[in-house]
């Protein structure tokens, strides 16, 4: 790790005042410190934001829930209000990383974590995300993890988060603060596609601070949601493909509203409202699920080694929707219920 300076900010104003000259905010640090050890990221200074009182998880007036930026992933996943009203988010967070990392990693940091593309991590290889203009080693390289949707000739990296796939489906809103004031960013606009600027993961400006994430009310989906994650080993691995599925099903069995988001397939959680619309007004059955999956995957392009992700994603979408129809697929409870 390069020599760095460290500053523990007492409040947001102090943190923002120090956010210049190559400094970065740190909360959990689980991804940033790892990248600093590899010299992939080289901030001159770290601004510790853990004392900013941004760890609160609390109901919002008018419904919905506020997830503080420095609240830990584990505390978020296990929070009674999250478990009760957003079981999809609990399932997604617990599908990611390890208990130790979830105990450290913050919600804001989860959104800002970088791709795990091996070429991004290996400073001995060209990478447009790490060093703009140097080229992409993944194109034509080892691509098992890489994108099948939304990639560009400059970058085919995927966003590694599970939590963010659920937040995309939930239509979360990111609240950020800078010297210029506060603003809200719709989750669909928060992460970027790589196009010709793969070094920019998000639309957050330099020196801008995430204060919290707003979850809109989602009680209509609470009875029918699923997070399905497919990976190379049973636990503690990044997704090859993951699916967040939420359905609002009427008493007549007809879908009133649907949400679908994919992880592991693109530079950002992949969500297409047009695919979700194909489910609305129809019975929750396999034929409509397959049609929605096809629509969600329109334009999917493999890189060779990762061609398998296209049919895998299609099947995973259908399976996740079937799990959602059956109830709330919360992997944290299935074995527990069996034992009880």
């Amino acid at each position, binding site marked *: *790790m*390069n*020599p*760095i*300076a*460290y500053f523990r900010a007492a409040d947001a104003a102090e943190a923002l005042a120090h956010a210049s000259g190559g400094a970065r905010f*740190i909360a*959990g*640090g*689980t991804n940033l*410190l*790892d990248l*600093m*050890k590899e010299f992939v990221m080289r901030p001159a200074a*770290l601004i*510790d934001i*853990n004392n900013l009182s941004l760890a609160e998880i609390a109901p919002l007036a008018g419904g919905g829930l506020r997830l503080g930026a420095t609240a830990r992933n*584990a505390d978020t996943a*296990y929070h009674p209000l999250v478990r009760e009203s957003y079981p999809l988010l609990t*399932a997604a967070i*617990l*599908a990611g*990383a*390890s*208990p*130790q*990392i979830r*105990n*450290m990693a913050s919600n804001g940091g989860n959104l800002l974590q970088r791709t795990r593309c091996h070429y991004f991590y290996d400073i001995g290889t060209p990478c447009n995300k790490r060093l703009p203009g140097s080229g992409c080693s993944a194109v034509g390289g080892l691509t098992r993890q890489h994108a099948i949707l939304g990639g560009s000739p400059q970058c085919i990296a995927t966003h590694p988060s599970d939590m963010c796939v659920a937040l995309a489906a939930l239509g979360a809103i990111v609240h950020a603060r800078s010297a210029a004031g506060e603003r809200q960013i719709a989750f669909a606009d928060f992460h970027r596609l790589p196009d010709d600027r793969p070094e920019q993961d998000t639309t957050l400006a330099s020196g801008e601070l995430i204060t919290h994430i707003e979850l809109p009310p989602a009680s209509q989906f609470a009875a029918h949601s699923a*997070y399905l*994650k*497919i*990976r190379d080993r*049973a*636990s*503690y691995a990044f997704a090859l493909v993951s699916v967040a599925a939420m359905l609002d099903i009427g008493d007549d069995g007809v879908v009133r509203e649907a949400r679908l988001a994919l992880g592991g397939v693109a530079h950002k959680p992949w969500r297409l409202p047009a695919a979700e619309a194909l489910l609305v007004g129809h019975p929750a059955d396999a034929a409509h699920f397959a049609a929605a999956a096809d629509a969600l995957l329109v334009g999917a392009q493999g890189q060779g080694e990762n061609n398998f992700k296209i049919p895998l994603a299609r099947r995973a979408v259908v399976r996740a929707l079937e799990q959602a129809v059956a109830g709330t697929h919360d*992997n*944290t409870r*299935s*074995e*527990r219920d*069996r*034992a009880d």
Partner: protein
Amino acid sequence: MSTYPVRLELNGESRQFEVEAWVTLLDLLRERAGLTGTKKGCDHGQCGACTVLVGGRRINACLTLAVMQDGQQVTTVEGLAQGAQLHPLQQAFIEHDAFQCGYCTPGQLCSAVGLMNEGEARTVAEVRELMSGNICRCGAYPGIVAAVTEVMGLAQHADNPDRPYLPGTVPA
């Protein structure tokens, strides 16, 4: 480069250090505090050998800076026993032959203490899933799971005997 004061309550003892900003908690424990029980396996949060308890919560000591933990209570494997009296998990690891080379063991032990503090694992399958941040290259997992679940008082028959393990379905 300047240094920063770090005060820790380390295994019940108040300790004061003066470290550069880039020193991880793991390096402080091993190189400055002389507590080499905590192991450096991968140094990237992938193996769990460096697991320690901060305020009773298990974390990877390699993925946090010492200066960020100023003022915290830190417990390492050296702090688990009460004098000559082993922690029940340590005794159970011996009885269940829950290690071969022993390199991952300090992290496994601290992780298991953290697991029990969290109170989220209620079946053998959930113990397996929630211990998945600790890798054992010797493959001592059956002994580790047996030791941890015994100390937790979990019925070994809690799982479906026909399918003792459903990949990817225990807390995902």
